């Protein structure tokens, strides 16, 4: 009998948990452990990391034995553009100010949905710019730079 992945979902989840658990335990090893009476900063995270890694292994093994569901197809466009929009906002808000950051976020973000229409997006950008500047910056007093200068 050959080994095959019977539950792709669980297998991937198990790998993720194994990765984070092993990483945590590995990093925590460098912190002082202390003893049960006087726990060092490494004690609890090391314990948790080992447990998480073990659970990851168990979930992976389980996925080889028990049949489960396949992973639904992902829309790369939605994923990349939504997260990209957030990234662009994070990257421009401090240097370029709220106007450019908002316009870019809404523009890039709207492209994530195949249903978006150019004219609607343009109107939306104008509307949200007014809100971002009028309500958030002036109204609520958030310390945004408005323009790059």
């Amino acid at each position: 009998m050959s080994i095959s992945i019977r539950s792709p979902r669980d297998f991937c989840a198990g790998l993720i948990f194994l990765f984070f658990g092993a990483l945590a335990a590995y990093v925590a090893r460098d912190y002082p452990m202390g003893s049960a009476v006087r726990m060092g900063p490494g004690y609890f995270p090391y314990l948790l990391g080992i447990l998480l890694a073990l659970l990851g292994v168990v979930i992976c093994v389980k996925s080889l034995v028990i049949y489960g569901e396949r992973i639904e197809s992902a829309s790369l466009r939605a994923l990349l553009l939504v997260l990209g929009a957030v990234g662009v906002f994070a990257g421009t808000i401090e240097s370029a100010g709220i106007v450019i950051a908002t316009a870019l976020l809404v523009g890039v973000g709207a492209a994530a949905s195949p249903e978006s229409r150019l004219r609607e997006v343009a109107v939306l950008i104008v509307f949200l710019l007014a809100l971002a500047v009028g309500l958030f910056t002036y109204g609520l007093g958030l310390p945004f730079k408005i323009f790059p200068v």
Partner: protein
Amino acid sequence: MELLANLQLGFDVALTLQNVLYCFLGVFLGTLIGVLPGIGPVATIAMLLPATFALPPVSALIMLAGIYYGAQYGGSTTAILVNLPGEASSVVTCLDGYAMAQQGRAGPALAVAALGSFFAGTVATLILVMFAPPLAEVAFKFGPAEYFSLMVLGLIAAIVLAHGSLINAIAMILLGLLLGLIGADTNTGQFRFTFGLPQLADGIGFVVVAMGLFGFSEIIANIERRARREVVMAKITSLFPTREDLKASWKAVLRGTAIGALLGILPGGGATLGSFAAYTLEKKVAKDPSRFGKGAIEGVAGPESANNAGAQTSFIPLLTLGIPANAVMALMVGAMTIHGITPGPQVMTERPELFWGMIASMWIGNLLLVVLNLPLIGIWVKLLSVPYRILYPAILLFSCIGVYSLNNSAIDVALALAFGFLGYLFIKLDCEPAPLLLGFVLGPMMEENLRRALLLSRGDPTVFVTRPLSLALLVVAAALLVIVVVPAVRRKREEAFQE
């Protein structure tokens, strides 16, 4: 009559013009965002939290509580009108609520949901008033061992309630606990898991985690789903329930309130469990169970009352023990901390005006909900008819501004992005993110209490089973776990989540 004096103090605080206004604003904004399909209370609170920073603590908490039940209620409106549950607790409302809406009876469904919720909210507030002080007394007897065991119980309960695989839920909690430890260790000042980034020294903000896991990832998933499913919206003709409707639903409201209030108090509980249990109960006691799913009004009245009662009583563990019972309460802990309040039994004695003011405001908030939702239903319907492709860029913008303004930090926005990616992976892999958030908030508290308990017992781990209160809590936790692992119950649980 200490109780009356307390209530009076509460209403004195809550009824100031300023606080009524903030309560109204909270309920209004909460409903506004909560009505939008695909945004649950956690994402709503995370998004609106920064708006409360500038307020004095009492007003901020009053507004936040308002946002919470506003969002909760808004989710029910969406469930009834467009068959899209905003979050788990309104899933069952979809079944009969949407069926009623399709038969042109959306109005009565909404009215019964609102009135049932109001009644349940009133009763739950009274329960809070009566049970919080004695529970806080008990809490003062808690040592670190008891706190640790209580948190274990809470986490186990959260695992039991998460849908999907149990073992995945446990792993999600562990991951959350670990993420919570990021930053400087409180005892030694040692930086942990900061990977050399000074921005991580204070740990990751809970809003950052919540926004990524519940906000961004949901938006991506919704864009995907939207491409496949068109939403049909029901029309509202008349709001008034008929005499038969009222006759059929008042008992369901009573039963739902009782079940919801009871289950809400449990650690790990909250609105969701109550609404499922109430629906099951209504089906059991009905003379003709086959009507359910086809527009039985009891199927709306019971769960809606239950989830509102549960939403209210789940504040009890938070306010008396300082332990959040679910993801929403975990956010409230964060919000209180930002305002310099450590949740726990001392709040009631040290800040009575805050404690009782918040409780009194809950009742006012519930009243405002009825006022908002029945006459203003037209506005929410209009809002629901705005296509998602226009809504989500706006939601995205408000979320980013919200996260940024927490610390005026672009790094926070970038971190939220990373959690958005992680959350999306978890959606695809069918791992529920709520246990992770709970673990995230409890992580540092658990470590602290574990350390203290073992320090006091000189490293003897049996301290958790030799102290009676601690033992009792652990026994309940173990029992819960056993019950769920037993096959028969497990099947039931799966059925319940499938409905």
